[in-house]
């Protein structure tokens, strides 16, 4: 290690400090500050209204809908994205074939922008020409209007879940490959089935990786924007609204920055709250091997 007297190397930290403070922390605290103001059209005048924006937030039907949708998303993402990815990874792990092929194919959508994925599914759902209706026509069935008030949330959830299965698949596959083969061999001698050894050996041994993945997935649901924005824009009638799309429509389409800031503050607090809760629930003694 260098001698401690050469402290001038600390100036290397300054550019990072300045940029992160200016463009992350300062705007973050400003958002909380602005949430107590009546502020519209990005004007230079804003009026302090205390908790006014928050009173409106509590009564706002669109906010309720967005929060409910986020929680539905949270549960489906955990079950069908992380859960399904785990099953796929276990299958490839036990078959021990096609490791590289499945990894390459499954991970590909992760690298594509939500905007492109959204547009792709928007086109696939199209009535006259869409992928889904073309398949229906091919089998001699009638065309369907895919996005309605009842189905909108479901139809945006499909690409959201579909896109990131490969992400968790890759993580789980790498974790599984670290388990020593002896564990399985001794289980096999004891007559354990593959499903038994998956449930009682593989899953407990990679539990800490599963926990990290779950918290990543939970934090991720609060960042959903692009896919919903492109496919439905949060509609029809807020049916597929999430907090991000609602903030965008309030602050930039509706030009109400004070109320938008209150929604921004709500997003921070919900995100923090859920991170704390998940960490508490998922904490388990790590099995070392």
């Amino acid at each position, binding site marked *: 290690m260098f001698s401690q007297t050469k402290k001038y190397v600390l100036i290397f930290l300054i550019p990072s400090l300045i940029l992160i403070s200016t463009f992350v922390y300062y705007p973050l605290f400003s958002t909380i500050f602005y949430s107590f103001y009546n502020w519209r059209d990005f004007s230079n005048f804003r009026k302090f209204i205390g908790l006014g924006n928050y009173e409106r937030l509590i009564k706002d039907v669109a906010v309720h809908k967005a929060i409910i949708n986020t929680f539905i998303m949270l549960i489906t993402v955990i079950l069908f994205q992380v859960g399904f990815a785990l099953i796929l990874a276990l299958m490839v792990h036990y078959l021990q074939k096609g490791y590289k092929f499945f990894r390459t194919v499954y*991970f590909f959508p992760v690298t594509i*922008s*939500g905007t492109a994925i959204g547009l792709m599914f928007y086109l696939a759902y199209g009535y006259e020409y869409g992928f889904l209706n073309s398949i229906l026509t091919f089998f001699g069935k009638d065309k369907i209007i895919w996005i309605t008030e009842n189905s909108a949330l479901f139809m945006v959830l499909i690409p959201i879940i579909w896109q990131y299965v490969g992400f968790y698949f890759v993580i789980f596959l790498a974790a599984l490959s670290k388990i020593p083969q002896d564990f399985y061999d001794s289980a096999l001698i004891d007559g354990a089935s593959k499903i038994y050894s998956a449930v009682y050996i593989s899953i407990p041994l990679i539990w800490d990786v599963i926990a990290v993945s779950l918290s990543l997935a939970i934090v991720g649901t609060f960042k959903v924007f692009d896919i919903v924005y492109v496919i439905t824009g949060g509609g029809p009638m807020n049916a597929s609204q999430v907090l991000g799309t609602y903030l965008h429509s309030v602050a930039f389409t509706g030009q109400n920055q004070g109320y938008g800031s209150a929604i921004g503050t709500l997003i921070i607090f919900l995100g923090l709250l859920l991170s704390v809760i998940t960490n508490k629930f998922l904490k388990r003694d790590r099995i070392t091997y």
Partner: protein
Amino acid sequence: MKGEKFSILNVLSYLILILWAISTISPFLWVINNSFKTTSEILLNSLSFPKELSFRNYQQLGNYGNINMFKGFFNSFIISGSVVLLVLFISSLASFVLSRFDFRINKTFNSFATLAMLVPTFSIVIPALILVRKLGISGSYLSLILPQTALNLPFAILVLSSFMITLPKELEESALIDGANFLTILFKIILPLSIPGIVTVAIFVFLWSYNDLFMSMILIPIREKQPICVLLSLVSSIYGTNYGAMMSALVITIIPVLILYISLQEFVIKGLTAGAIKG
């Protein structure tokens, strides 16, 4: 694992794995296939192959309404390229300090950076827009480059410093005795050895910036300077019923990412798994 080759479980596993692979690839193939067809051909049957390989849809992308996808490409490379270079330069300076020295401030700086990673862009965008106006860079490339750089720094510092910490300490000690200064040590010794880490960071930062829609569309409201992702989000309303053009717009947006992914896949996957499994 050894054992029976044709058990029901094995067959079922293969079936599910292959079906999922098909579900992953087929939407992309559908889009690529239709990008070579006229809209009337798409409406007739979107599953058929094109009668002739026509690039007409792609030729329209230069100007359609007020959208120029090729300009969007150019803008994206300026913005994302600058973000990658800035993030790499600034984060390697910080990572050098955090990984090769033990100052008391390092721990504080680490939590400062890690906490910044948790901040969602929704919660900073309104003041960020005001800030770039106050700084007089509103509407320029810089108004997006600076916030994106700041948002990617914590991740880059985390990955790079955990990479640099694994390099042997003797390297720079002898260089220091030879009278080298810190900048020389960083750029001549540490950085060349950190190239695998740098490549991983560069790929992830590029993808994040190139794929970002929310910050990009708000911080750059001027059409001529918007990156391709923002233009793509407008396509479905501006192209009306020209589905062929939409498909081709989608394809050219994906192509750079596809090339990057195919050529550098190992770095992407290694970076991802290293980060997640370490915790």
